[in-house]
């Protein structure tokens, strides 16, 4: 039931929206670092399109936050200290090579699809409506990422080697996506989401295992214990550097209009 006047409902909804917005903005930002540097022009076009979608979706969530009484979207995006960010650590890590960025985006997109589907009947209507729209757009991202993953996995040689390395580098961060930093029970209770984190992880594993098989890649096994939880505001130096860059012009004159 939508009880937007219930303090706890609002609190939990806002926390969840920060998680979603921050995930998307940082992923889009990392993706945009690849502009002009992809292996071919087709890749540049695709990656820039995907990055733009992510930033667009992030903007949608920040606008919802603002409607719920949080700061204006630009201040949220460019004026917050690292400890206030609620993204999972997977998306804040610096880019590595092409296989790393593709695989990172794939892992996240699969998680996001499950999260979005679990919100298609969310009790908060503005979120529900936006999610139903965005899920249709995300379809293309996941399709493309899965295609790339399969191609690189089945190619053999350098491509498969690098893919293996990328998976190993990313694996410790995967579990962090499924953390909801303690609000998961209330999210369910308030019907903001329809699945538990465990249910989401199980779905993710099922999809990914099938994909790994198609790509001739071996499953790495259990996720290691999470060292830091981005959703609790525990972040890396990489995020601090990113935020300095991202906020550079905005913070040069915070009261100015750009």
């Amino acid at each position, binding site marked *: 039931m939508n009880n937007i006047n219930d303090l706890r409902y609002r609190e939990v909804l806002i926390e969840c929206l920060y998680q979603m917005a921050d995930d998307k903005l940082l992923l889009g930002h990392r993706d945009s670092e690849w502009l002009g540097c992809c292996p071919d022009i087709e890749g540049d*076009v695709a990656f820039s399109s*995907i990055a*733009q*979608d*992510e930033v667009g979706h992030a903007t949608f969530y920040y606008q919802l936050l603002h409607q719920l009484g949080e700061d204006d979207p630009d201040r949220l995006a460019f004026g917050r200290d690292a400890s206030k960010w609620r993204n999972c650590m997977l998306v804040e890590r610096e880019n590595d090579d092409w296989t790393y960025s593709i695989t990172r985006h794939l892992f996240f997109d699969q998680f996001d699809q499950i999260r979005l589907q679990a919100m298609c009947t969310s009790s908060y209507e503005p979120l529900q409506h936006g999610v139903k729209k965005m899920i*249709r757009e995300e379809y*293309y991202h996941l399709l493309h990422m899965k295609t790339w993953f399969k191609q690189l996995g089945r190619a053999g040689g350098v491509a498969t080697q690098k893919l293996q390395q990328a998976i190993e580098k990313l694996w410790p961060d995967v579990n962090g996506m499924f953390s909801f930093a303690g609000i998961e029970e209330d999210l369910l209770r308030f019907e903001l989401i329809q699945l538990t984190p465990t249910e989401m992880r199980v779905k993710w594993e099922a999809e990914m295992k099938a994909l790994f098989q198609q790509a001739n890649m071996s499953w790495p096994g259990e996720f290691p214990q999470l060292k830091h939880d981005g959703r609790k505001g525990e972040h890396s130096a990489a995020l601090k550097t990113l935020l300095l860059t991202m906020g550079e012009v905005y913070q040069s004159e915070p009261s100015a209009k750009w």
Partner: protein
Amino acid sequence: MGMVHRVLVNDHDVTVQLMPTFVGCPALELIKKQTMDRLQQIDKKNRIHVEFVFDPPWTSDRITPDGHQKLKQFGIAPPQKSLQQLPSCPYCNQEDGEILNLFGPTACRAIYYCRGCKQPFEGMKVV
């Protein structure tokens, strides 16, 4: 383009509800402004409001037959009924295309190539 959901008229206020094609489309603000300006020109009595709504979500099958024609005139293949179908070439109408990129110069378009007239063309994505 099938973006108009409804128009609400109320005393001295006219509200146009538009459905965004893509959430991240950078043209949304421009579309809003152009809609307001155009209506303000026609209707000088009432206050014009334009807002974006996400329910129902815009889908590419909302584009009307007239919209399809106009897209073709612009050199853009209108969206097919399903993702598996390749669009016919907006220049020569042949059904001999191949997909070059699921993505294109904008969020809403993909890039194809017509083997008939040997030209690349853009096509609206099925959403």
